């Protein structure tokens, strides 16, 4: 079950960040922020390789004793970072992938809204609902 989901813009500021247990919000913010370094590292490691679906998913960024952090980057360098609880029976990789895919689709829908300016915080209710569903059941 994801405990924190964040959408980071290309310039590395958050477009959307939400975490489940409210008391750890600050901790998750910090975690996501530090994970951006890892994301950049992985992205630069890819080099000029082709960008396809496989490359968008970055996989496990780094694990800690409490949780794991997964990353996903889109073609427009918008990053999705997901923090999942380690105590959970380990979510399989393709589950994480599917979650990221759903995130990406929802993000695309948000983008399609002409009233959304890229670079704004995301306030879409549909996006919120989707993220909530992901955080509650983690699928």
């Amino acid at each position: 079950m994801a405990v924190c989901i964040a959408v980071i813009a290309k310039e590395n500021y958050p477009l959307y960040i939400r975490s489940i247990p409210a008391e750890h919000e600050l901790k998750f913010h910090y975690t996501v922020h530090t994970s951006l370094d890892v994301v950049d590292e992985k992205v630069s490691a890819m080099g000029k390789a082709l960008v396809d679906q496989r490359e968008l998913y970055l996989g496990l960024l780094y694990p800690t004793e409490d949780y794991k952090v997964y990353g996903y980057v889109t073609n427009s360098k918008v990053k999705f970072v997901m923090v999942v609880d380690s105590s959970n029976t380990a979510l399989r990789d393709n589950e994480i992938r599917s979650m990221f895919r759903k995130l990406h689709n929802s993000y695309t829908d948000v983008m399609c809204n002409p009233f959304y300016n890229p670079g704004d915080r995301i306030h879409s209710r549909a996006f919120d609902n989707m993220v909530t569903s992901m955080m509650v059941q983690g699928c």
Partner: protein
Amino acid sequence: MEQGPAAAVGTAGAVGAAANAGAPAAVGAAAAGALSSGASAGYCPVPLPLSDSEQQCYSELFARCCCSSASATSSSSSSSSSSSSSSSSGHPQPPPEVGRGAPLPGPAATAGANQVGELFRASQLPAETLHQITELCGAKRVGYFGLTQFYVALKLIAAAQSGLPVRVESIKCELPLPRFMALKNDSEIRYSNPVEFHGMKCQIPYVTMEKNSFKRVDDGEKQDTMSPTMSPISSPPSSPSNYQRVPLTYGYGKLRSGMDQIHAAPYEARQLALQQEGPTSGSHGPKPTRRQTSLIRSLSVEREPQESNSNYPDDPWRITEEQREYYINQFKSLQPDLSSFISGSLAKNFFTKSKLTIPELSYIWELSDVDCDGALTLPEFCAAFHLIVARKNGYPLPESLPQTLQPDYLQSAFLKPKRDCALFDSYSESMSVNQQPRDLNRIETSLKEKVDLTAPAQDVNIDDKPALKISSMDEAMPKDVSVDTASPKDLNTVKARPRSRSYSNTSLEEAMKRVEEPPTPPPRPQKSHSRASSLDLNKVFQPNAPAAKPGLLPPPPALPPRPFVSQVLHHNTSNDSVSQPKPPGQLPSYSDFRLLEQTDQVSEIELHPQLTRTPSQTEESGSPVKKDLPPSKPIRRKLRPENQIMENQEPPSSVSGPSTVPIVKPHAPVQKQSSKQKKAIQTAIRKNKEANAVLARLNSELQQQLKEVHQERIALENQLEQLRPVTVL
């Protein structure tokens, strides 16, 4: 004034204990106390007895009217303070004091004229009655609506609504509370002041009480229908606050009684809301007036369909006929092709004019754009527009798109003919997919039957298009249309569209009407023909954007020559298709039928210039007139289309008409009968030749385009080849 405080105390204590809406009650009670003391001193000659409920109601209304105006803060702050004090009720002294302190601005405060006017209009009384009331209550004399005037006016309204004559004596009686259709007022209050929620909540019970004492105009069944409509109110899960729906139900219930003002009020309110905050740009300027006229027209004419329409009045998410018409017109203003969609940026600019906030608009978009493609089709656009209208009227946006606003529901609804509202009855509350094919069949039959379309030509054409989509009624519909559109008005509109592409039509008008009816390919494949369309067919299609798909047989790009060529063509083909040239007797009759309706001269003029050309081409006829005419032949040929067009529509006043007629008439009127047939045949032949020429030209142009497209394709393939090795690696 000792009576004043004592009375105030008594009433305040009683009311404060009884009612649960503390603030307005305290204000109202004290205010009523002040009123009774002030009324005797005031210029209202009769002391105004008010019952407890009346006091409450009136004070709320007055507070609402006051609060809506500038003096919101004082009364709201005073009401909140008095509510806090009255909650600790056991001290009769403080509440009246505070309460008395509160209305000190009260009697001196004046209800805003706008709000009062709207409130009075919402009482559905005729205008003269309202004038009488305002006069009687003394507002006219004083020039403003003070507390006393307002209360007297409310009492008079109640009297008038109960059927009593509007007189000062009426207010002495025990009267029920005045009834207002509080649609817009509620929304205004919701928007402006959340404190007023209490006031509204208090009024709603009065509303529900009043529905039972409905001594309104006509149908007793309305009472029965009122209660069923109340129950569905609680059911829509999408609206979190049900009580806000009640005023709308109330209003829609009144709608059924068929009073003009009721119906006008919400739409007026909506119009006002949209107009005042509406756009200032030019594209919107003419629209409100058009909408008004369309609404007024529909209001005055379509009373019966409205009855059947409002079978589902409880659902504010259901789009009514006028609303749909308006939305469709707005869609057309942005995107003339109704089957295409409006791009996101265009829609954004348009909806931003509604002055809703961006987050709200964003949410509305999210709700209405179900396929999330960043563009709005017609149903999506109507849903979005409807949501905006609802939001501006104060309805909270639903959590999810209501079922009546779903695109598939709206799509099927749009296929219904606009005036066939009887079909609405077929749409029960649960719109199942099964019903849709059945409704489509009914639409077919109804469209077939519907001959007397009084709508302007555009609407007819729009109706035609979905009809064509449904079934292949190509032949049936145009015939109906052509029968109707012999009126000059339609010919005028057709004249505005010179393009017509009828190579196989049976009548002239039908040919001209065909601008809308060429079989439309599915809406997307424009991409493949984009090049072809970009050449010059776009210019051709510009004046007739709907159904302008380049995949069709387009008219030749040479647009100007078309009208008279096509006229000739149509006449020719009409002649041909109607009857063979062999029985010549019918041809002149057909041409006469078309043209001689106006006068004889028209056909003469038409035939003679054509005759003048035949000698040069094939044979010569024996008309003695032609000798005079050859020199002026080319001129007359150009004049002829104007002649034809003009004379088709107006009494012939052509240039060459009078000149040729005197020449023609004296000569051989007897021979006309036989030579006419020959001329007609020659005309037909010549027209065929012209048609051939036109088609050949068209063919060559299309070949040219095809060649260009081929070349393009080759170039693109080359490019692809060059790029490919790089990517594959």
